[in-house]
């Protein structure tokens, strides 16, 4: 039996505002419990929510970036349920008329093709607080600092057909919100999290199967593993004569499995109705145009530009446009060097990326500035140093030993390009290795590399490799 997986994702992105969506309380992460929860966030009697304009602007920015319709009029609704981290007994959300409708996002699949994933909607809502279940004498502790943090819930169509596609979509959306500067994208802190609706059906069946919703997946890896487990579970269940029930499940990363949440209490009966405390949100052309004017160059467009403008491969362009900061850094290197975009790309995606990775740093915290890297590349370009020596200089740059020129001077790394000096070294090496010379001249061509190695060693790596090759070729002929 061939099975097809059907996945839709609901992604919650915390919007990077300074204050909450309906109150003037701060949303800084990691504050002392309940020091950022004001009367509105606590649902005190008599308070009124007032919408943070910036949250609406950010939602519109996302909508414009995914080719969505921006609702000129959207409505806030109450989603009613009881949980201690939701003090009002309802969450302010949007239901029938969300601010963003019908968008799309294209993802690159492993086989190199593109697939367009529909985005059903994106709506504004408030986050809940946090429940701490560690032991407080048999009670739970509630921190309401997060209550009222603006969220954009982005709902995809059930267009995803594998765990890998789901992850690709999630990564693409993550890249987008971070590019837009509307979300810090920090998944450990819960700024970007995901619920996955997963079902399976027999290949060719026009009907969707019954779906299970896996809640609160906060890493790309967990999304992939949770979906893979869930798909397997559902197929096994159906093939052994069982039936999938619609329910909410939690992923346990330690066991690598999904588990049913108490389904009895999970009566998804939220009794939405328009929130009488909030009037419809009306957006005019000026507001939408201002949001459009604030859009940065989007990832796909930047990637395409890097390919055409700098002659980069699709792969390199993709790596370099993974984040806005990395793209900016790369372009700053090219600008400072005044050309050689391929050389710049090799160094940014190669040595620099490796060092950043090793030290677990972001490009913004690189100890080597774009200008300093360009300074190093300039010395490769004008043959002051070889590519190999450049790696040594780069390490010194990384360690903060000044700019490339100072390091080259101080360490005496200047490449030897003086022909007579190189010839002298070559003569010495040939004289010291008469056996190898004889073998080479007898036809053992492979020994050429041996001589190159010896010359480079004797020159402490400073001899210009191209000149060494040319001169050695001549000399060995005899």
């Amino acid at each position, binding site marked *: 039996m061939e099975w097809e997986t059907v996945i839709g994702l609901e992604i919650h992105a915390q919007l990077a*505002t*300074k*204050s909450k969506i309906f*109150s*003037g*309380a*701060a949303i800084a992460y990691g504050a*002392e*419990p*309940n*020091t*950022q*929860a*004001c*009367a509105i966030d*606590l649902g*005190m009697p008599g308070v009124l929510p*007032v*919408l*943070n*304009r*910036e*949250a*609406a602007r950010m939602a519109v920015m996302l909508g414009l970036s995914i080719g969505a319709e921006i609702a000129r009029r959207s*409505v*806030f609704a109450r989603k*009613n349920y*009881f*949980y*201690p981290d939701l003090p009002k*007994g309802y969450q302010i959300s949007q239901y029938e*008329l969300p601010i963003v409708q019908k968008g799309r996002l294209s993802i690159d699949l492993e086989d190199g093709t593109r697939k367009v994933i529909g985005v059903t909607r994106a709506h504004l809502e408030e986050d809940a607080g946090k*429940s*701490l*279940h560690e032991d*407080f*004498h*048999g*009670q*739970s*502790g*509630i*921190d*309401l600092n997060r209550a009222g943090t603006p969220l954009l819930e982005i709902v995809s169509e059930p267009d995803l057909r594998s765990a890998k596609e789901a992850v690709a979509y999630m990564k693409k959306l993550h890249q987008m919100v971070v590019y837009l500067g509307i979300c810090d994208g920090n998944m450990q802190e819960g700024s970007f999290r995901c619920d996955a609706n997963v079902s399976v059906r027999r290949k060719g069946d026009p009907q969707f199967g019954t779906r299970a919703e896996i809640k609160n997946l906060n890493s790309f890896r967990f999304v992939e593993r949770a979906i893979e487990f869930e798909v397997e579970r559902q197929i096994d269940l159906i093939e052994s004569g069982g039936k999938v029930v619609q329910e909410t499940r*939690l992923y346990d990363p330690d066991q690598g499995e999904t588990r049913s*949440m*108490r389904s009895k209490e999970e*009566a998804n*009966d939220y*009794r939405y109705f*328009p929130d*009488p405390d*909030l*009037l*419809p*949100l*009306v957006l005019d052309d000026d507001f939408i145009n201002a949001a459009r004017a604030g859009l940065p160059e989007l990832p796909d467009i930047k990637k395409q530009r890097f390919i055409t403008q700098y002659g980069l491969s699709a792969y390199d362009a993709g790596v370099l446009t993974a984040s806005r900061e990395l793209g900016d850094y790369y372009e700053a290197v090219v600008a400072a060097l005044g050309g050689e975009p391929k050389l710049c790309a090799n160094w940014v995606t190669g040595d620099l990326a490796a060092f950043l990775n090793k030290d677990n740093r972001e490009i913004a915290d690189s100890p080597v500035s774009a200008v300093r890297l360009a300074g190093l590349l300039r010395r490769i370009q004008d043959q002051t140093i070889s590519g190999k020596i450049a790696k040594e200089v780069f390490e010194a740059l990384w360690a903060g030993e000044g700019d490339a020129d100072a390091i080259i001077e101080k360490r005496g790394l200047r490449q030897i390009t003086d022909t007579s000096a190189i010839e002298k070294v070559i003569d010495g090496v040939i004289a010291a290795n008469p056996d190898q010379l004889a073998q080479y001249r007898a036809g053992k061509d492979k020994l050429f590399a041996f001589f190159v190695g010896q010359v480079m060693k004797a020159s402490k790596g400073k001899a210009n490799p191209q000149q060494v090759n040319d001169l050695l070729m001549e000399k060995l002929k005899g």
Partner: protein
Amino acid sequence: MSLGPAEVAKIAHLARLAIRDEDAPAYARNLSAILDLVAQMNAVDTAGVAPMAHPLDTAQRSRTDEVTEFNQRERFQAIAPRVEAGLYLVPKVIE
């Protein structure tokens, strides 16, 4: 449309309202009467009438994104039944 005792019990549970069994028939009657009113309104031809989200015919005001609230935790927690380490304590909720 008429509601039975089971539906009344479900609605009460969703709203976390404790109602006495002997009051259930009265609730069922009153709620059914409200639904009848809605059914009556539903019968009106509303084609071409935009749904109303709010009786006030105006749009939502918004505020600029500024932090205007300061920490008043002590005052809020003075009226809480139980607090510890800055947290509000509530009966254990298990997921």
